[in-house]
């Protein structure tokens, strides 16, 4: 029953996405990283080739990819550039709550336009005072009769400056904790939304990250996903889907760092031979390759479980934590193998090391993933 081989179609998808990563993303990744600017030309091209919004089901105009297919795509795009991939992946993160918790009308209204032209979405969960403790959300959603009234501030919102649509989590009553959390779809033009200045970040510099403030924002009643209080369940299911995806991006980044280190180790001569001939470097490369392979297998299994209709909460967190930590280690070792050159911005591994760090933080820190895993193990 076990089969570790991608399907013929998945191999073709992978080949195409890798071609895009190598020919379109990698040549521009350093430039956009330094400019700290959204690479709109590349994102639009990726969209036109079907590489964006892979979570949208076929009945709403999507391509109808399985979760496993989208892992293959994400890994390839992250191989090209982590920052560009974050801009792409953030769309899925923001649209997944609609895919998971939306009714037919909401899906038609908000998912289908994303398949007709390149549009951008932003997921608004984290707040200045609430990151890992998402249950402590302070943004309020009050019943204003024929609409909802939203007040609060959101932090570290990817794509915020470019978003056409926000999916926002707030609470109908902070006292209710998780049970009060509710999710809304909010159009960008709704009065009362204030978009902050771009944050200056260590890595993923070409992705757009900002604070978003909601002041008496009136949202139509029909824009709530599910009913009041359904938000927590929708958010958790979203994470079951999105964590494997983030993990896949870590595998892509780690594979890229490994490939660079491998190539460099064969070229760099010290003590009369390529450094790849020295056992200390060989052991590092072996360790890196092991981590990449093991992380990829965890990603595949966590995605496969979703496609089988099974719970993947534990595996998704395992994949996320292991891949993110592995990527950090592999990228750090790649810099080490490059030596002084690795510390220079002239060479690609410096950026990979900066980019790796974020994967251990966003979408649930490596510590939060361990809490989730422990909870599942101790059940």
């Amino acid at each position, binding site marked *: 029953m076990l089969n570790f081989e991608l399907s013929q*179609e998945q191999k073709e998808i992978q080949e*195409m996405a890798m071609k*895009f990563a190598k020919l379109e993303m990698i040549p521009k990744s350093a430039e956009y990283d330094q400019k700290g600017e959204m690479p709109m030309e590349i994102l639009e091209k990726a969209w*036109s*080739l*079907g590489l964006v919004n892979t979570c949208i089901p076929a009945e709403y105009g999507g*391509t109808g*990819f399985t979760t496993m297919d989208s892992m293959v795509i994400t890994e390839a795009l992250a191989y090209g550039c982590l920052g560009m991939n974050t801009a792409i992946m953030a769309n899925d993160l923001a649209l997944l709550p609609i895919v998971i918790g939306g009714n037919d009308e909401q899906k038609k209204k908000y998912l289908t336009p994303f398949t007709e032209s390149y549009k951008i979405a932003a997921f608004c969960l984290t707040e200045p005072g609430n990151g890992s403790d998402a249950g402590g959300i302070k943004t309020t959603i009050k019943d204003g009769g024929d609409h909802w009234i939203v007040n609060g501030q959101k932090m570290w919102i990817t794509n915020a400056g470019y978003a056409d649509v926000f999916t926002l989590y707030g609470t109908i009553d902070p006292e209710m904790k998780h049970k009060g959390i509710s999710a809304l779809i909010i159009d960008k033009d709704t009065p009362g939304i204030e978009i902050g200045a771009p944050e200056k970040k260590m890595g993923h510099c070409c992705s757009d990250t900002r604070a978003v403030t909601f002041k008496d924002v009136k949202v139509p009643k029909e824009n709530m996903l599910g009913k009041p209080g359904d938000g927590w369940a929708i958010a958790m299911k979203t994470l079951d889907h999105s964590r494997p995806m983030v993990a896949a991006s870590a595998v892509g980044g780690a594979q890229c760092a490994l490939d660079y280190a491998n190539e460099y180790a064969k070229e760099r001569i010290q003590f009369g031979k390529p450094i790849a001939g020295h056992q200390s470097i060989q052991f590092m490369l072996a360790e890196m390759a092991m981590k990449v392979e093991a992380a990829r297998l965890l990603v595949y299994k966590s995605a496969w479980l979703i496609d089988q209709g099974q719970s993947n909460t534990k595996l998704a967190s395992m994949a996320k934590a292991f891949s993110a930590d592995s990527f950090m280690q592999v990228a750090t070792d790649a810099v080490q193998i490059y030596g002084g050159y690795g510390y220079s911005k002239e060479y690609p591994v410096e950026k990979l090391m900066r980019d790796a760090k974020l994967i251990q933080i966003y979408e649930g820190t490596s510590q939060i993933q361990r809490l989730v895993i422990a909870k599942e193990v101790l059940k």
Partner: protein
Amino acid sequence: MNIFVCVKQVPDTETKVTPNGDGTFIETSSIKWIMNPYDEFAVEQALLLKAANAGSTVTVVRVGSTQDTEALRTALAMGADEAVLVEGEDNLDSYMIAKALKGGIEKSGKTPDIIFTGKQAIDDDCLQVPQLLAQMLDMPSVSVVVGFESADGKVTLKREVEGGALEVYEVSTPVLVACNKGLNTPRYASLPGIMKAKKKPLQNFSLADVGVSADDRRLKYSNFQLPPEKPPGKKFDAMDEAKQAEVVAEVVQLLRNEAKVI
């Protein structure tokens, strides 16, 4: 308009090619196949022509073994409508391939208005199939094409000649156009294109079906071998200024008497 594209599947440019056991061809078992890069320009031009002529179809034809159908799948994923595969070994000669392509085109049930090919395949570099095929089909052919325009049953083709000059041809259809780099920028196969490709019609024929037999072979392959390994280069140390005149004299002597290049 019935547009045809002939594609060849060739080893990936990064493949390390080795002779097979009896030296009659290359070892094909572990090769990663790709569409011949010049054929990508042919597919792209066919798709552009189709887009400009509503109701046209693009049929892609390939002769070769079936172990991997990369070239046809890529063409379909890029947007070709249907495919014809004439199954045969990978070591057919140019004449057999041209004859089999002709048969495949005829078996498709469509009469070609225009046929696009790459100007050459990057594996054997014979540069013969486009001209042979055009001759067999009794139609004109123009090769090394870098410019293409089409209007009212005529095509205007630009081809590169020595020194960077361009020759301009006006040819009435049907015509065979062998494409060169620079003609266009081949598109990516989009992901929806890849998913749709599976459902597109693919007709299979054998060599016998299209009237090609062993008697058609004009070229017998034998004695395939790797080129002899290059001897290591000689190094001369000219860093020491005092010795430079001596080193230069030695190099000149070696170039004249040993390498015999001056």
